[in-house]
Every structure is written in C-alpha cells, then in structure tokens.
C-alpha cells in the first residue's frame, strides 16, 4: 500500500478514495434529503452559516476524491465523465442536485398532498396546498366560455366531426390520394368554416349550413353521373352555385319556417370562449395564413418589380407591428373602413387580423426555403419546358416546404401562443376566462391554481406540436 496523498487522488489507493469519497458525498445528499423531506437538521450543532454550507463542502470533497481518471470501474468512469469533470462542474452538479431535492417536497405538497380535490364550494379549500376544487367547479367555463351548458355538445360534436374529416387522408385509397392536397387546401377549410361558424352559432344562420349540406349531398349524388374528365370543374362550380341558389332563390322562407319547429338555439360569438375558442381561432388562422403566406413568399421572389415591392411592403409592415396593435386596429379602426351598414362579426375580424399577421411570418419562413433551393432545381424545371406555376407546384414548392417544416411549426406554435391576446377585443379564451374567474367575489385568491392549470394545458399542446413537427421533419428528410 503506497502513501496516501489526500490532495491528489490516484489509482493506487483507488478503493480508499472511492469509499471515502462516496461516503462524504452520500452524507451530504442525505443531509439535504432529511432536511427537505423530514425537516431534520442533523448538522444543527454547528453554527448556522456553517451548517448551511456543510453539505456543499462535504459533497465537493467527496466528488474531488472520486475523480480518478481511468479507474477501471465502469460506473465510476461514467459518473466522472457526466457530472464530475472538474471542480467547477462538481459544484454546479451538487447545486442542481440540492435544488431538485429541496424543491420536490414543497411542489409535491402544493400539488397533491395538501391540495383539495373534493367538494364543490370554496369551503373545502382550507389546506395550504392548491385548491383544485376551483378548477373543477369552473371547468365548463374554462373549456367553453359563456356558451350555454345545455348546448355544449354542439362544440364537442363539431370538433369530433372535424377531426374525422381531417383524418380522411389516412383512410383514403390510393385512387383518391392525388386529390388530397386539393381537399386539404380548398374543401376542408370550407367545410370546417361552415361547420364551426354555423353549427356552433346556430340560430337563423344555421340554415346557411343546412343549405350547404343539402347542396353538397345533391351535387355528390349527381356527381357520380358526370364524366370523370369534367369532374374537377363540376365540383369546383356546382356545389357553390347550388348553395347560392338554395339560399337566395328557392327555399328561403319555407326553410326558416320549418326551422322554427326545432332549430338550434342561436349563440352569439361573444359567448364563445374558453379552450374551445383557442382551438377555433388557432385552427382557422392556421389554415388561412398558410396560403396567404405562400402567395406573398412567391410575390417577394417574383420577377415583376411592382408585385415584389407590394409583397415586401405587406410583409415588413405586419412583421414590424405588434399583434396587440393589429387587434386594436381590427377592433376600433377597421369598422371605420367598411360601409356603414356592413357588419363583420368580432370573431371573424379577429381571425382575419391574426391570419394576415401570421401570414407575413409564414411568408418569410417559406422565402427562406425558396432561397435555400439550389438554382439547378429552377433551371432543370425550366429546361423541361415548365412554366412558372407548373415549376413551382411540381418542383420548387414541394422541396422548399419540406425544408422549412421546423420554421413553419415554430410559426404555428407562436400563433397558438398568441391567441390569448384576443382579450383586447373582448373575446375571452382560456386565459381571459381565468382572469374573469379570478375576480369573482366567491372565488377570490385562487389565481395561482388557474394559471398553473392553463400553463399545463398550453405546455402540453405546444410541446406535442413541437414533437410532432420534429417527427415530420425526420420523416420528410431527404439527403442531398
């Protein structure tokens, strides 16, 4: 056994150092653990300041002793490599371990142990923990806003229907797969808009929706007898024409009368709210801002100077102003720009404003993708005799969009996170509802629970979206 030099741990006294170091390290962790979980202070006999620093000092000495390079013990080497490379890292690792140990008990007790779950009034919330009863009682308001309780199945139903319609892509046969883009870009947003706007708001406008359904069913039935060469144009024109015909010329009075027998109650958009409004707004802005953004991205790279300057002006304007002023504009300034008898719903104005705003960001992201494509792609497409639109639709855009999936996902994430701002125009989605509930005299003092609840919901949505975009990126990754 060689001489031990405590300032230089070496391999010849490996086990002495290992046992001594691990012992000191464990003592330090144990001290913090006991302190935080059982509020015992085993070093209480020391002066306060030393007792506070002791775990850190002991842990540091312990980690110093076990920092032996190439010890031959696999676990020890792994530990040294990951948390114990040098003195500075050792101190940081210790601090992080201690912070985690210290913060677990209060968080646990606030969330679960001292929290109250049962009951449906404020009286049960006497503990020091969170009052989840508050969330339970207000759950419907947080989810559906001021939407009448009896009618909320309509919101659920439309979301389920939209999800089913949206998943058509998974179930479509190969024969129809080539129409999927058309479906998702043109038809699906149209159906979704009809569904959400007319079905959820109900009332007289609901019949617009019924006309839409009748028109769609009729035109699909007739569509079977149309030669396949003309089918595209047929479905482009006939359903819309039929819808207009139904609405303005044929059944108008009769259907209104019929509807009074058992129609849907009318719910104005001001009563919509909660998480469902967050979804509705994000969804519409998402499907509207993408095509607009794409158009301006192409416009900014166009060869026509006037179109280019207009696109640059549009993009830079929306990117330069904050969303809150845009919403202000849509609330107080936009009605001035319309004819006096022309009224646009508050929610629709909001959706237009956010879509235009986000479209500018989408445009910049897509432009990045267009610029990243090698010139050869453009030249190859042109040399095949393709025109501008053919080249972009079949060659350039599919590649460019693939490149910018992460950027577009980030823009969409930003969009979802921006939806709470609609409180400016008086629409209350989940964060707005929280602020309303917070001021209710019966439920004062539960702001924290509400914000934590909303934060968890948003975090789950955003994290899931970012993970999904990452998967998408991996799936479409093609090596060059």
């Amino acid at each position, binding site marked *: 056994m060689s001489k031990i030099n405590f300032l230089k741990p070496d391999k010849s006294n490996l086990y002495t150092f290992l046992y001594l170091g691990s012992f000191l390290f464990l003592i330090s962790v144990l001290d913090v653990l006991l302190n935080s979980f059982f509020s015992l202070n085993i070093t209480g006999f020391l002066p306060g300041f030393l007792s506070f620093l002791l775990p850190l000092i002991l842990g540091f000495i312990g980690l110093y002793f076990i920092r032996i390079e190439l010890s031959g013990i696999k676990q020890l080497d792994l530990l040294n490599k990951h948390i114990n490379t040098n003195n500075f890292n050792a101190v940081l690792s210790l601090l992080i371990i201690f912070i985690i140990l210290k913060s677990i008990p209060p968080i646990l007790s606030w969330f679960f142990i001292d929290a109250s779950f049962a009951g449906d009034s404020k009286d049960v919330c006497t503990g020091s923990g969170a009052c989840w009863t508050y969330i339970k009682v207000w759950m419907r308001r947080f989810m559906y806003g001021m939407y009448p309780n009896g009618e909320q199945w309509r919101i659920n139903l439309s979301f389920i229907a939209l999800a089913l319609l949206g998943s058509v892509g998974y179930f479509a046969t190969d024969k129809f797969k080539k129409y999927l883009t058309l479906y998702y870009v043109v038809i699906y947003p149209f159906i979704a808009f009809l569904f959400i706007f007319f079905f959820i708001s109900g009332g007289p406008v609901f019949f617009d929706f019924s006309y839409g359904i009748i028109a769609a069913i009729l035109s699909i039935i007739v569509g079977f007898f149309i030669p396949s060469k003309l089918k595209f144009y047929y479905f482009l024109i006939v359903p819309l024409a039929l819808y207009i015909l139904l609405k303005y010329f044929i059944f108008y009075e009769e259907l209104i009368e019929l509807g009074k027998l058992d129609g849907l109650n009318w719910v104005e958009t001001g009563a919509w709210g909660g998480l469902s409004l967050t979804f509705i707004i994000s969804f519409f802005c998402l499907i509207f801002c993408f095509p607009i953004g794409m158009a301006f991205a192409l416009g900014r790279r166009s060869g026509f100077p006037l179109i280019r300057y207009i696109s640059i002006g549009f993009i830079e304007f929306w990117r330069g102003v904050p969303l809150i002023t845009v919403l202000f*504009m849509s609330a107080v300034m936009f009605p001035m720009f319309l004819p006096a008898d022309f009224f646009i719903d508050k929610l629709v104005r909001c959706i237009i404003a956010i879509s235009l705003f986000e479209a500018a960001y989408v445009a910049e992201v897509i432009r990045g993708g267009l610029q990243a494509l090698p010139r050869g792609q453009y030249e190859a497409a042109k040399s095949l005799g393709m025109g501008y639109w053919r080249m972009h639709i079949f060659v350039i855009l599919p590649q460019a969009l693939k490149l910018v999936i992460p950027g577009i996902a980030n823009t969409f994430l930003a969009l979802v996170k921006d939806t709470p701002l609609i409180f400016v125009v008086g629409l209350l989605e989940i964060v707005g509802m929280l602020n309303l509930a917070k001021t209710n005299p019966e439920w004062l003092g539960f702001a924290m629970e509400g914000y934590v609840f909303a934060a968890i919901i948003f975090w789950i949505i955003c994290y899931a979206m970012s993970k999904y975009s990452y998967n998408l990126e991996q799936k479409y990754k093609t090596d060059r």
Partner: protein
Amino acid sequence: MNFKLKDIGPQLMTVLAVVLVFGFFTYNAQVNMESRGIDFGYGFLSQESSFDVQFSLIEYDGSHSYFRAYLVGLLNTILVSVIGIILATILGVIVGIARLSPNYLINKFAAFYVEFFRNIPLLLQIFFWYFAALRALPLPQDAEAMFGISFLTIKGLYVPAFIWQNFNVFFYSVVAAIIAIIIIRIHAKKLQETKGKQTPVLLISIGLIFILPLLSFLIGGVRLSFEVPVLKQLATTSFIYEGGVSLPPELIALALSLSLYTATFIAECVRAGIQGVGKGQKEAAASIGLTPNQVLKLVVMPQALRIIIPPTTNQYLNLTKNSSLAAAIAYPDLVLVFAGTALMQTGKAIEIVSITMFTYLSLSISISILMNWYNRKIAIQEK
C-alpha cells in the same frame, strides 16, 4: 425598352387591386367620419390631455399635452425593452452555453428550462408573475431589506437613488474613456496587421474605463451620495417608502417574464451558433498551438457570432413588440397610454392607431438596421 403585355399585365392587375382596396377603405372612412361628425387631423396632439400616468420617466401630469403623453408611453416601452433585452441576453447566453455542457445535470437542467418557458404563452407568464407570484410579496411594513438598502414589496421594488454633484464631468469622463478605447482598439488592430505585434487591449480598456471616471471623482469635484428609501406611515395600516427610486410591480413582472421567455429563444440561437462551428476549426486552432481561451476568442466566437446575430436580432425585435402586452397588466406603455387612454378620450381611432403602429414599425426598423450594420461588419469578407 420593349413593353410586353405578358410582363405588364399581372403587375397592372395587382396594383389595380391594391389601389381599389385602399380606395374603397378610404372612401368608406371619409363617409363614416362625415356621418359621425369626426374630423381627421393630428391637431389633438397639442391639446391638454387631462389624464394622469402612474409611472413616467419624464415630468408629466394631466396639464401636459397628448404629445407628451405619447412620449411618456414611448419612453416606458423603450425602458422595459432595454431592461428585457439586457437580462434576456445574459440569461440566454448562459443557458445556451449550459446546453452544450458535457455535464449531464447542467445540460438537462438548461434543456428543461428552455422547453418549459418557451411552450407557455407569454401573456400567461405575465399574468402569473403579476397576479400570482408578485402578490405573494410582503407588505411595505413587513419587508426585509436586501443588502440593507433596497426593499422588495408588494408595491414594487424600492432602490436607493443616486444623487450626483457635477454629473456632467463624470459623464464626459466616461465618454472620453469610451472614445479612447475605440481609438486604441483601431490602433492595436492596425499594429497587429502591419507588424504582427499584439497589445493587451482588454487590460488597457478596463483600466481606462475605471481610471478616467475615478479621476473625475478625485479632481473633477464629482460627488455621489445615495438616498435610501425610508418607511413612512400614511395611516394606521398604510405604509409607503419615501425617497429613492421605486420600480412598480408592473415593470418588474413585465421585465421578468419578457426576459425569461425571450432568453429561451436566445439560448437556442446561441447553441445553434456554437454547434455550427465545425469541429475541424477547433482542432486546427488547437493544433497550431493556440490555448483553449484563444481558440474560443479568436476562432470559435467570431464564426459563431455570424450565425448567432441574425436570429438574435429577430428575438430582440420580438421582445420589443411583445412589450406591448404591458397593456394587459396596466403598465403604462405606449399601447396603454396612447392607444388605450388617449384613444378613449379623443376618439381619434385612425390617427392614434396609425401613430402607434408607425412608432413600432420605426422601432423595429431601427433595431434591424443597427443589427444589419453590425452583422455586415462581422460577416466574412470574401476577396
């Protein structure tokens, strides 16, 4: 020049569409304003505003003009943006470097921070800090002093005020130090390029920036004293601190949440930038005998900065624009003071919203011009 219909047609159509849309809007606006008896004009800016603002950097009360109110809001916006940018940069750089640490715990801790804060809407974070976290602070009479001089209470943060004598002399000495440093840097660079001689620029700079202001204290007659906030009783249960500088809780909540939120994005930019520098660069630098510090300073950082600057500029712009969320917690920024209170009082929707938007637009453009200039300066000079 040969005009072709194929070239002119689409452009003409677009311009026509834009002109038509704008014309439609202007026409309607004129008709609407006439029917409601509103006149268009910016004359109201010089009228007396007759409303008060809680927190202002310049002297202001109800007897000042609307233009003064606009300036108050603008300065408050700039104040919170500058504080936010500084804090977010410091935090973002630290977290970004921590995410590249070989230490597993630090790495995961930083990753957790980034994933946590950037996936929660900023507005929610502002509300959380303002309505939930800062409300848990002690009342003024119960507050414990931090370092004996400043007090963090539910009514805001009270810090000592600086009271200067002959502030001008001190200010000029700092300016002189900065100019001297710039000259020395340029000179040192020239010396290095022509003769290969290295001068310890950093040491000289640090020395200058301390010694010149210190000299102004010794011989320039500059005096500095502190005014510490003192607790004062207004009524039996109402206390307040007097003297010193008070930062309202709105400002603290806003600056805190803006910097915590933006720091996550800056951290990702920094990480991407440092990862973007090829491994070969570091190895090559090490193999010609540079020390690790020199490798970082002379090889890695100049290249990483080129990748970091453009996205970080975007984040600064976002932070400035996001500061307009102040309106939600009644921090008197541009949107709240001008597009909120002033608009309600005057009813001049078009004028006020357009001025507000134009102001943000020019703030954004000036930041981006500044950063573009810096970016061009450090970009690769291809020969």
